[in-house]
């Protein structure tokens, strides 16, 4: 079994330092604009910040992966090319991309820098992945969070590149890169603007008896009684009504986080090269706890010991966790 790379979120320079110091093999990050899929206010890197951060990460033996993984709309492509050229100049170790045009640009202009296919490209078959490998010399694919471990194992035997899978964090229900729900409601696009449920359009409205409604744009996403913790209004984690179902229900999924700690040995045995922790929007404390816990777990599996995973439940959304699609097809 090869030692897998632990790939950790770096939403800010301080989060990157924290991840590096906690034992991340690689960190991923983006610039402060629409070129990456976590374009949230207060997150991401300026050019000088990334320059300093790359130096610190490399000094600690940690690779820096730059997410340029949104889809540039026609007329704005140059912003993505600038992000790529800047990343190359700063010495990043790999680009994470989804758009075919951006991949072609990197392959042509920076052929020596590794290309990773983002989860946003939604490549879910060996054929799709082989297409990207053939065309752009993609070295690694980040798999959509829709496959079981046994499907991943089969996949590993059929493709010519490395596999990265998510192991912890936010658990979006829609196939990444194929969701325009946020744009339908808010006018900002997940694919084009890197935005999902933008905070500027979120409202928490309290009624007379203390119930709290969470709204995105003009629409109510959920409603909580006083004894419930109100979650952030993400469309695919809301409660809705439909004639076929008795009463309000989570039509897509409840607020819950992915946690694959107990599947870790299986994932590693399945041939996964890199294990990804989600959460560029999360705090430094989150990064420190999750990275430290998974560092220990991976190292003990490699040493042939049972992994001791510390309790991460407190860091999950709604204090609930799931193994999502990975454990069994019944998730679908």
């Amino acid at each position, binding site marked *: 079994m090869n030692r897998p790379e632990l790939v950790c979120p770096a939403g800010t320079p301080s989060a990157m330092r924290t991840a590096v110091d906690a034992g991340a093999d690689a960190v991923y990050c983006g610039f402060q604009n629409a070129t990456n899929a976590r374009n949230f206010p207060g997150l991401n890197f300026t050019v000088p910040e990334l320059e300093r951060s790359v130096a610190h990460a490399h000094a600690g033996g940690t690779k820096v992966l730059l997410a340029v993984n949104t*889809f*540039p*709309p*026609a*007329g*704005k*492509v140059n912003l993505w090319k600038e992000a790529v050229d800047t990343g190359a100049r700063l010495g990043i170790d790999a680009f994470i991309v989804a*758009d*075919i*045009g951006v991949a*072609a640009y990197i392959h042509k202009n920076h052929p020596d820098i590794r290309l990773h296919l983002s989860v946003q*490209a*939604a*490549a*879910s*078959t*060996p*054929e*799709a992945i082989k*297409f*990207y490998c*053939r065309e752009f010399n993609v070295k690694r694919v980040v798999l*959509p969070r*829709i496959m079981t471990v046994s*499907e991943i194992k089969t996949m590993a035997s059929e493709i010519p590149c490395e596999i990265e899978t998510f192991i912890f964090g936010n658990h979006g*229900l*829609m*196939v990444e890169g*194929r969701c*325009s*729900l946020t*744009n*339908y*409601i808010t*006018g900002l696009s997940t*694919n*084009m603007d890197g935005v999902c449920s933008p905070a500027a359009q979120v409202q928490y409205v309290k009624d007379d008896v203390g119930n709290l*409604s969470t709204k995105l744009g003009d*629409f*109510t*996403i*959920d*409603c909580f009684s006083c004894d419930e913790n109100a979650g952030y209004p993400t469309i*695919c984690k809301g*409660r*809705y*009504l*439909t*004639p*076929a*179902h008795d009463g*309000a*229900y989570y*039509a*897509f999924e409840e607020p819950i986080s992915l946690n694959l700690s107990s599947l870790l040995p299986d994932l590693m045995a399945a041939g996964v090269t890199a294990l990804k922790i989600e959460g560029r929007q999360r705090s430094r404390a989150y990064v420190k706890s999750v990275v430290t816990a998974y560092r220990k777990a991976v190292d003990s599996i490699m040493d042939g010991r049972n992994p001791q995973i510390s309790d991460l439940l407190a860091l999950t959304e709604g204090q609930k966790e799931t193994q999502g*699609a990975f454990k069994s*097809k*019944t*998730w*679908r």
Partner: protein
Amino acid sequence: MMKTQLTIAPILFHWSAEQKLDFYARIADEAPIDVVYLGEVICSKRTPFFEKHYGEVAERLTRAGKTVVFSTLAEVMLKRERNMIARFCDLEDYELEVNDSSALWHLEKKPYRIGSLMNVYNEDTMAYLVGKGATHFSLPPELPHNSIAILAARAKELGVTIEVQVFGRVSLALSARCYHARAHGRIKDNCQFVCEEDFDGMPLNTLEKEEFLTINGIQTLSHTYLNLLGELDDMKNMGVTHFRLAPHTQDMVAVAKIFREALDTTASVKESSEKLATLGIPAPLSNGFWHGRPGHQWVDQIC
């Protein structure tokens, strides 16, 4: 300038074989439609119900003067689905519309169309795929008009054509999970085809009983119906060549006639809109995406 083409998208919902046969018979005999996209795009479990009819339907439509194109599954995962894609890519008699990058592996240097469920957002991606054999692009519905204008201009230079959806519910998201099954307390593997009860999709309303979204198996669609009658002139001027109608249970022959007249400017936007309003469309109309606004919104055109 080439004559504008009116197209009909694949049926996204799980209609019975009889419903589909009737639908395509009417399209063949009565509708001013130029291109018909056939095939199951959403759920491979549904394919056995209509598979045996495709040959006869395609032939009938072709005899009626329509161009027939087969659309591929939008989300490919299982071995059975991968084989389906491989078989489709070997089709000789009909063109193919690709909705997932799996097909691109098989189609090296063979001409094909790109469907609206593929992510072609910019001129670089378009040019790259043209180099790989793409001849026609149906654009993602969330693209705003200024991006579509640039894509249409570039398409003209590249010698390919552009299609934009102008009517019907808009696809917003795909998932591996079946939300139809989930609403009925089931999972995808034992769904018992509960989606067949909802001919235009299953309504999803907010807790305040406001109409919100539409569920179709693994797909989430808009509640509103897209209507770009008022934008057709702009689209023609930018070089959009194909105008796509999404099938619903409303009278699609009437919808096609309304859009054909509007494209030919034999009816004004006002007249066409009034006719559309008589067809009993069960949801508000929207055109927000085109105008760079939230997709569910309606932006009044200054006439």
